């Protein structure tokens, strides 16, 4: 019994078996004004990878300066501008859009058995808003730069010279890209599921995207208003954050983190979503506790709105407020723990293939343990007061944002590469590059926990000699990480140039997106599919569906 049936009516494009979304129209304009979610996803992918490269080079410069105490490469003011742009580019221009807008755009309609998203024109508009926002933000680099850190705390951000307004305005515009994409995805998931795809047959990646989209729609407007207030404060001196005018600098922190805490769940939820797909495919099992896993995604989205002031335990809030936020922050740890136990449990008595995408999924499990558990030190008031604003926090968030989300993104890129490009990459190279990346990554950030607990504050240009050894280790491993990532990039470029043609289902997955050819035709499936099973029902999938071709 075929689990995915298609209707018998003919459809356009059925004539040429080699017709796909890449070759159906040619020329630059066919890309720039495309309404095809797959092409839009590819444009996002190229753009976010370019920003990842730029932000990564900034990181290498920061770590290079910190190789030795004293002046190594640059003056303090330059260093401050470099770490600021590293944060702004990585947060707003890479990690928030990367999984939802690049991979999500490509895969979501296919996983639903739909032809496209609900609002294709809005989708294209989202992309251009993103690019416009990025242009404004990057323009600030040539207009004096910004030295405030990516969090723009007042009064420093309202009184420092430099192009703060351009950068903040850029983030403001890019935020609308996020909101509209979220809206598009929510409507698509509600309205365009193929016949037979009930909510309990929804792939967990889409549950994750759904939860993320709710966060994007509800939280991002708060950032927009906050940034607008910052611009008004700088340009018109309205005084809302200025103590000399009766304003309160700490108010900015409340506004900023009310968005930015949900934002970190916008970053991690899609990563967790990808991990579900990787583990299911490469264990040939339905994720253990499917229900608990999607409920935990929704719970994380809800709770993420309640914990913002755990970024502010030392800001001067009352002990009572700190108590409430500490308690709520512990609550947020529970759904994450549930997911980790379910992922690990799925491995028991499974049928496991450690292909390159799975390696990234397994690394996620290890690194998310570290990232999540180090959050406990920060949720606990007594220890957070010591660790706040030290390298311990830097290490914590890089473990969840890079060690978890970016590793998931890279795993997803490997996993869906054959679908997006129709080509295979060299598997042996992929595994070698993985190991270099894994070792490099952990070597950069593990020492930073110790630097922090020993008292090394964040955003420091220079440090006392006692901190030199750990800084030096961290910097050297940043070079190893760079080698791993560049090696992987060259591998992908080689695949584009002369990679082997990908079969229909290279990973023997039962996922719905593997039911269509690689690369997919313009309308994703030869004809409207019907789903008769769930995406992880390996015991119901036929051998023909699981086979490579």
């Amino acid at each position: 019994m075929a689990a995915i049936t298609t209707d018998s009516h003919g459809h356009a494009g059925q004539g040429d078996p080699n017709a796909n979304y890449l070759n159906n129209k040619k020329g630059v304009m066919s890309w720039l004004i495309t309404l095809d979610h797959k092409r839009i996803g590819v444009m996002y992918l190229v753009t976010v990878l370019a920003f990842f490269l730029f932000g990564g080079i900034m990181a290498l410069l920061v770590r290079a300066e910190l190789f030795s105490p004293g002046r190594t490469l640059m003056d303090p003011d330059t260093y401050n501008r470099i770490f600021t742009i590293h944060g702004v580019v990585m947060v707003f221009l890479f990690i928030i859009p990367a999984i939802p807008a690049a991979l999500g755009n490509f895969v979501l309609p296919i996983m639903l058995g739909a032809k496209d998203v609900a609002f294709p024109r809005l989708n294209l508009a989202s992309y251009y808003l993103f690019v416009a926002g990025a242009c404004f933000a990057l323009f600030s680099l040539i207009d004096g730069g910004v030295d405030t850190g990516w969090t723009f705390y007042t009064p420093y951000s309202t009184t420092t010279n430099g192009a703060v307004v351009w950068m903040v305005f850029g983030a403001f515009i890019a935020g609308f890209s996020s909101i509209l994409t979220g809206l598009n995805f929510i409507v698509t998931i509600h309205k365009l599921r193929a016949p037979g795809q009930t909510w309990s047959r929804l792939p967990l990646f889409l549950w994750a995207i759904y939860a993320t989209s709710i966060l994007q729609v509800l939280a991002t407007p708060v950032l927009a208003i906050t940034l607008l207030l910052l611009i008004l404060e700088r340009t018109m001196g309205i005084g809302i954050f200025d103590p000399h005018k009766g304003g309160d600098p700490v108010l900015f922190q409340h506004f900023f983190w009310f968005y930015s805490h949900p934002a970190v769940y916008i970053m991690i939820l899609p990563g967790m979503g990808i991990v579900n797909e990787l583990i299911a495919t490469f264990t040939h099992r339905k994720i253990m506790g499917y229900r608990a896993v999607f409920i935990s995604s929704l719970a994380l989205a809800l709770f993420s709105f309640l914990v913002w002031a755990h970024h502010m335990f030392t800001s001067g809030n009352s002990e009572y407020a700190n108590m409430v936020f500490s308690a709520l922050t512990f609550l947020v740890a529970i759904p994450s723990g549930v997911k980790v136990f379910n992922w690990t449990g799925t491995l028991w008595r499974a049928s496991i293939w450690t292909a390159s995408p799975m390696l990234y999924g397994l690394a996620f499990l290890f690194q998310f343990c570290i990232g999540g558990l180090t959050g406990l030190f920060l949720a606990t008031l007594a220890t957070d007061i010591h660790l706040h604003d030290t390298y311990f926090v830097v290490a914590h968030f890089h473990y969840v944002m890079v060690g978890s989300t970016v590793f998931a993104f890279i795993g997803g890129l490997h996993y869906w590469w054959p679908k997006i490009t129709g080509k295979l990459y060299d598997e042996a190279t992929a595994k070698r590059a993985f190991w270099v990346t894994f070792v490099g990554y952990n070597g950069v950030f593990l020492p930073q926990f110790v630097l922090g607990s020993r008292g090394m504050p964040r955003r420091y240009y220079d440090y006392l000699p006692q901190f030199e050894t750990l800084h030096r280790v961290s910097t050297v491993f940043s070079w190893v990480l760079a080698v791993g990532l560049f090696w992987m990039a060259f591998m992908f470029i080689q695949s584009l140039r002369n990679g082997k043609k990908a079969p229909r289902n290279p990973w023997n997955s039962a996922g719905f997106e593997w039911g269509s050819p690689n690369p997919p035709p313009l309308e994703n499936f030869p004809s409207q599919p019907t789903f008769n099973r769930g995406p992880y029902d390996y015991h119901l999938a036929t051998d023909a569906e699981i086979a490579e071709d």
Partner: protein
Amino acid sequence: MIHFFIPQPASFDLPPPISSEAPQIDWIYNLIYYVSVFFTVVITGLMLYWVHKYKRKKGDKRVETPHYPRLEIVWTVIPIIFVAFLFHIGFKAYLGQTMASQDALEIRVRGQKWQWWFTYPNGREAPNELYLPVGKQVKFVISAVDVLHSFYVPGARTKKDAVPGMYTTMVMTPTSLGDTPVYCAEYCGAPREGNPEPAYAGAPHGGHSAMMAMIHVVSQAEFDKRMTEGPSKPEGLTDAQWGAQLYKSNACVTCHSTDGTKGTGPSWKGIFGKPVELNAGLSGGTGSATVDESYVQESIRVPAAKVVAGFAPVMPPYSEQALSEKQIDAIIAYMKTLE
């Protein structure tokens, strides 16, 4: 160069605890650490073991994933109990660092780019270095002059942000004699050009990272002596030599070079006795002045009165409590030697 001794960490992760509140916080830190290591090892270990044991083989059956609702409840409830416990002990220990007793020693702390100023109960003021009597609870009353800073004492496992327009408080009871550093832990920028010397000699460079101070925990007797004694010239030094020390220890070095380089303030090289053009100041003084003894004395006590043209009026005033007349005389003597 002032030499200060920072002892080796008492544990691998943490600096030596110097306050009565710190050991309790370290205990909680270590508890979380061991629980975290345990869980990470268990999860990673199971992952590695099962990935190896259940490697895909030809003929593997594709089956349904089994359901264990009771197990799922257990692994939800046990973490809830653990985090509730952690919240409780964390909150309790935290309160110990925030509630001061009535007879705590009150120290007023002001942060500004890029140095810390301390005021003792008897009105005495000093930048960069703070003396505290061992065994006595201290209540810091903290504020900032310009932007956010954060008063961080790693040895006491405590910090509090310095916020302009607001007073914040922080409590600690130092129990170890010796020196313990203070770092600024809230990003506050750096000098726009170059890489000038930090206010506290031997501190790192770079504005925010240069904003270090040193707490000297001394005996009650020594503390009392320091509070009553006038600051006097050290044995065997000339006035000019004492002035050279004061130039560093009172942070003049942060803004005034001695080699002609323009900083936040004018260089002292060759400036004594020179006529200078002025910006408009507090007392409406414009035009020009000569940098004589009277000018220097006024510019230390009321810096905004006569600001040299081309410089911003950002110098903090040094009151009688911060620099005595004798100390100003020594600084003037030093300036005269800087041809």
